[in-house]
């Protein structure tokens, strides 16, 4: 199997070359997990709310068509234009078409992982549109010409110095300056000018409410609102799974979202859009791009419950120590690994294996997606489908042979213990992947079976 990009294991090796950096990345993300814990433990009803959210989302999956039709009806009645896009290419064309229709060649956008998934920025830029990401983290990675490494914290993989150097080059800040306050102020000034001069603003959608035809956009920075309320045209893009049935359900989801993501009780701004302001056009693009296929996969459809909080990433030991870029997917981490194979099984076959199956992700998921179980199930699908490299397949088959024959297992164990005792250098070297960062365990004098047989007689 050949990849033009590295697979997760290879990319992780590169990431792990700088051990102090990996430790820092690990600690930073774990700290965010701890903030989530502190915040969620303050609500005695936390587990009940997770269950409620999960059940609401199950209802959504099973009533998806009706809810989307209701949503569209209400949105249109509010004066919002509703578009449907089967795939990423169609989504991108719709956005471009709207901009061209209004003779617009410059646009501001706030965070939308969907547009990352659709590679919208690249497409628009190729077609002569200047797209400025206004979320600070997104703007940073945009200037660096790289994708975000985390769906909520796009620049979590970068240090102050990286950003200081970047802003010195692009925003004219002082060389060597790294004070976050100073750098943020520079970004504020730089982006304020963009907000004031762009006639088009594109936002994501955190939740779309079928009952009202409205949608909610949550930010801490206020960038979505600065863009939308000053633009002549506001384009909002959503994967269709973002729909929820009733406005009162926002109570559950808004209480869970920010606490799960960063430990805040709520983001600074929770903007509820329903009707365009006078003289403004509001457009909603409902996107499929493989979601309706995922909906049909009995084992994997629950991945569509996701509210994109990122809690699974913050807790995942593999994500923390390999970084979002190792996942070569718009959405990384545990949730990315169960969404991505549906999009492209060849390209993303490595992702469900980027896991120890520890289950921490499922524990923190606010909508109770069985992430770690889906990771395991995807492995079965991918192996059966022949998407796994031959080497791995052979290795697992060999292990299966050893484990299914008691005599062969005992003989292998005896041989292994002898080698480790007599000639440890044969295993304590770089040919042994286990030895890469770990000591080998002490070889016991005898196997448990031998000890048991011996002692049972007494």
């Amino acid at each position, binding site marked *: 199997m050949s990849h033009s990009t590295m697979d997760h294991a290879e990319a992780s090796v590169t990431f792990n070359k700088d051990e102090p950096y990996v430790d820092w990345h690990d600690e930073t993300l774990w700290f965010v997990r701890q903030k989530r814990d502190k915040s969620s433990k303050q609500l005695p009803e936390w587990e009940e709310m997770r269950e409620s959210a999960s059940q609401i989302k199950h209802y959504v999956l099973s009533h998806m068509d009706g809810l989307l039709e209701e949503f569209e009806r209400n949105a249109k009645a509010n004066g919002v234009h509703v578009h449907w896009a089967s795939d990423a290419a169609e989504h991108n064309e719709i956005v471009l078409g709207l901009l061209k229709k209004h003779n617009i060649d410059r646009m501001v956008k706030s965070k939308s992982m969907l547009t990352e998934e659709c590679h919208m920025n690249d497409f628009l830029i190729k077609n002569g549109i200047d797209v400025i990401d206004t979320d600070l983290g997104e703007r940073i990675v945009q200037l660096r010409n790289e994708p975000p490494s985390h769906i909520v914290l796009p620049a979590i993989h970068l240090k102050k110095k990286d950003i200081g150097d970047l802003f010195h080059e692009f925003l004219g800040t002082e060389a060597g300056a790294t004070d976050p306050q100073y750098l943020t102020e520079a970004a504020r000034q730089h982006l304020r000018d963009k907000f004031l001069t762009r006639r088009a603003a594109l936002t994501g959608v955190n939740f779309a409410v079928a009952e009202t035809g409205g949608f909610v956009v949550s930010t801490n920075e206020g960038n979505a609102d600065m863009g939308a309320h000053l633009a002549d045209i506001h384009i909002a893009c959503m994967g269709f799974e973002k729909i929820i049935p009733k406005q009162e359900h926002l109570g559950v989801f808004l209480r869970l979202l920010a606490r799960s993501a960063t430990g805040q*009780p709520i983001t600074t*701004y929770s903007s509820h859009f329903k009707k365009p302001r006078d003289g403004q056009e509001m457009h909603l693009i409902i996107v499929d791009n493989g979601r309706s296929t995922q909906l049909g996969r009995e084992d994997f459809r629950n991945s569509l419950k996701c509210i994109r909080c990122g809690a699974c990433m913050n807790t995942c030991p593999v994500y923390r120590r390999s970084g979002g870029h190792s996942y070569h997917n718009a959405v990384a981490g545990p949730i990315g690994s169960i969404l991505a194979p549906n999009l492209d099984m060849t390209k993303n076959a490595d992702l469900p294996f980027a896991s120890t199956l520890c289950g921490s992700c499922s524990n923190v998921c606010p909508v109770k997606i069985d992430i770690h179980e889906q990771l395991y199930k995807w492995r079965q699908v991918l192996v059966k489908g022949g998407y796994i490299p031959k080497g791995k397949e052979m290795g697992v088959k060999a292990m299966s042979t050893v484990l299914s024959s008691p005599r062969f297992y005992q003989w292998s164990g005896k041989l292994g213990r002898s080698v480790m005792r007599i000639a440890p250098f044969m295993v304590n070297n770089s040919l042994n992947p286990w030895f890469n960062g770990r000591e080998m365990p002490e070889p016991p004098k005898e196997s448990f079976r031998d000890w048991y047989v011996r002692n049972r007689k007494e």
Partner: protein
Amino acid sequence: MSSREKILQQIKNNKPAETQLPVKVTFESDYTDTEAKFIETLASVYTEVIVVKSNEDLLAKVNEMYADVVSKATTIPALASWSDFSLNIPDPHDLETIEVAILQAEFGVAENGAVWISDNHLPHRALPFITQNLAFVVPRKSLVNNMHNAYNILTDTTGWGCFISGPSKTADIEQSLVIGAHGARSLVVFLLEDN
């Protein structure tokens, strides 16, 4: 077949068996002192909460707090003498120079310090975001415990509305919290007592 039809058909074919909505979708928060919780939560996002007894009290207070500030706007008639920036302008872009805006808002939520403001209270939606500094005035007895209580009140969210909790902020630079990203750099909430 249009994309819309294609997508809806695919969804119809693939969706799982129907389930019911859960019975319990709202939860009570029992704070012994709702106002104290509101004030405490806002303090943690660098927002001062000031109780004022009357409109006269409010006017005196803002005159004192923003004595040397130029470009002051308000949606509150009782503060007309304090302001020097008229909001009676057609283009929201021209709000760009406002230094401080004191705005009437509807109610506050104790669990997260959020204040609800909407089209009902604003000549321009951009106003709470574009001003450099922001203040809200809400009735003291309008505070509710949590978001479920809030949505109980919001039977109609109007064309646009927003929960705003604190000044704008970001932690995108090495997780260091910086107050004042793209929205307001500071927030004050006045709780106005009934006359």
